[in-house]
């Protein structure tokens, strides 16, 4: 009788309560130690890039905003930025500031959502509820500022939508909210970092060393927790006038991936305060002269999860061509696969969540037939 030497495989997904996204992770384990891992996504392709092909630019912006619920502003902002770059359009300074203001508020609520999700993955329900409670005032401010809690629709070609130009009353509500949030957040971070049970779970778990993170081009807080100062805001002219620190830690573990986001919250609050102090007067939107038949343009932006890439061109009839979106998750996926190796199965899920994947936003259509890959064409996507 021959012994079966295949490794033991534990499959998670395509549905799992701790990570409600269409994904599948194959953990190869020895006892409970993960020796290999494979993450598969694309289970719910929405065909957004194909939907954008050949439609008018402004309609494309409306669709791009729906790519993600947690970073909708970043997608719309980057879509507007890439169009403005392609058409060589100018934006009033006040509008630039408002775009950054909403972006940093969205980063705060996204990071707080991450902290809540991380605590839930730890099994720490009480901290989960407290993180969500911290997030709620930020959501209320975003609602007052933009009229929506999720899809804010703030940027527009040539500035921001006039309805999102904040009044003095609206701006006056942000400072007290930040003061309370900072106090409560400090207490929360101190409570979590001094909790021996929580720290024993996250310290030294899910090691993603700098070399591996560099090799697989980790982005966002995942890279910054491994000692790589990778932040697209360094290249964004909108942040030139703002003073803040780029949080870079060298622990390379789950603890640091959580801490990076926790510390970035304070920096985002710092940015919001500067904007409130220095928000220039003037127009928030100027009429634009649309230019067609542009060259391919591409822009990078620092979304809460990392570098977000948009690329497109406008044809001679003002329609979008070759739109490409690369969310921060795909480069981080390979890092997640490496980081879980050597850890326990229970820690592995936490390690993946600590890289804050957003798989629905990242999905692409790939059809595999007879071992050959091909992309779906537009009509087939529409029929799906």
């Amino acid at each position: 009788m021959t012994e079966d030497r295949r490794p033991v495989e534990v499959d998670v997904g395509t549905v799992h309560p701790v990570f409600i996204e269409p994904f599948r992770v194959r953990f190869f384990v020895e006892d409970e130690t993960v020796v290999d891992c494979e993450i598969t996504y694309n289970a719910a392709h929405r065909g957004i890039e194909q939907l954008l092909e050949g439609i008018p630019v402004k309609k494309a912006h409306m669709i791009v905003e729906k790519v993600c619920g947690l970073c909708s502003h970043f997608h719309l902002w980057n879509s507007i930025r890439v169009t403005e770059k392609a058409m060589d359009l100018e934006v009033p300074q006040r509008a630039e500031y408002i775009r950054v203001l909403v972006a940093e508020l969205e980063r705060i609520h996204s990071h707080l959502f991450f902290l809540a999700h991380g605590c839930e993955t730890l099994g720490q329900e009480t901290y989960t509820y407290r993180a969500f409670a911290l997030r709620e005032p930020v959501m209320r401010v975003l609602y007052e500022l933009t009229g929506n809690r999720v899809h804010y629709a703030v940027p527009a070609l040539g500035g921001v939508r006039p309805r999102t130009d904040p009044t003095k009353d609206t701006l006056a509500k942000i400072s007290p909210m930040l003061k309370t949030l900072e106090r409560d957040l400090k207490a929360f971070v101190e409570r979590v970092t001094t909790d021996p049970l929580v720290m024993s779970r996250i310290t030294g778990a899910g090691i993603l060393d700098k070399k591996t993170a560099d090799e697989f081009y980790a982005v966002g807080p995942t890279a910054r927790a491994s000692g790589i100062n990778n932040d697209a805001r360094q290249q964004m002219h909108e942040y030139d006038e703002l003073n803040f620190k780029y949080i870079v830690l060298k622990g390379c573990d789950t603890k640091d991936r959580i801490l990076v986001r926790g510390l970035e919250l304070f920096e985002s609050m710092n940015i919001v305060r500067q904007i409130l102090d220095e928000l220039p007067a003037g127009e928030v939107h100027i009429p634009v002269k649309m230019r067609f038949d542009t060259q391919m343009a591409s822009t990078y932006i620092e979304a809460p999860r990392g570098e977000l890439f948009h690329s497109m061109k406008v044809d001679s009839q003002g329609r979008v061509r070759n739109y490409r979106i690369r969310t921060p998750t795909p480069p981080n996926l390979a890092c997640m696969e490496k980081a879980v190796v050597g850890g326990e199965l229970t820690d592995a899920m936490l390690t993946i969540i600590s890289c804050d994947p957003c798989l629905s936003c990242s999905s692409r259509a790939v059809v595999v037939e007879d071992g050959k890959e091909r992309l779906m064409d537009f009509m087939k996507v529409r029929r799906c």
Partner: protein
Amino acid sequence: MLAETLAVLFIGAGMSVLILGLERKIHARIQRRCGPSVSMPGLWSMLKFMYKEPARIDSPNPGFYGLLLVAATASILSVLAFSTPPWYGILGFSSLLGLVGLLKVEEVAYVFMGSLSRSVMSAGMPYPDLIRGSKGAGIRYFFEDVAATRALKMITLGSFPFYVAMAVPFAAAKSLEIAAVTRAPPTLYTVYGLLSAFVYFIGYNIIANNRPFDIIKPKVDIIEGPMMEYAQAWRALSYLMRGLVLFTLSSVFVTLYLGIPLDVTDANATALHLILAMALPVLASVLRAFSPVLTFRQIYPISLASTLLGILCLALGAGGA
């Protein structure tokens, strides 16, 4: 005796339902929520499950899988019954060895449950992985297989603190009989008794699969573990069993450490016993609300340290310190 036994079982079931509700209420208040009413998670949830449509159990042997839950519940009820005065001396189960044996039935049941459950939650994809670069197929483990392995580890290493702490009052009374323990001075009023009560509390949470020691069924990875396929009336019974474990082990603690057994013929003693028996479930609820799921990386050292402390208490108790 039949009436007394039925009264004990009725009280046990009632307290189990109450504890389940109280546990959720305590969590909610700690988390600054209103939470459900106390009767909702225990009583009304069970009734709701009783009226659900029958669900097919995904298991190679559904009958035996269901029977395991009945056996585990029966063993816990037996522990409760044998720790009460009417059952002292019957079949020799009202002793340290009897209690350990009955509790082992419940612990071993999780191993078999895990081996016999095949939930769709980890069934994987119905087609092979054809994507280029995909890793070759391994030997498939269901979540429940992982849970079975974990249950086995908990039996072999995790549950030591509980049994060591349970033995301390017997060692102090220099007898293996519960009756003798209840006649001896209360163990809790000694230094080693207090320390071993702490060890008992750690072990209590381990045996009851209470967070942070719920590694055999954490929602964060293997979801419900061995209990995943219990639906409809089975789910109601699994709820009842969890409540029974929480109450019964707490009741045993009051009997052994304070010498106050659940004597239904004495109303005052019964009331006092029930009030005291709420202490451990309440403390466990607070611990649960503030704890993450611990992995074996943390459980082994905690179990080892608790066991060593328990052995020290055992030696002190046996020496009459």
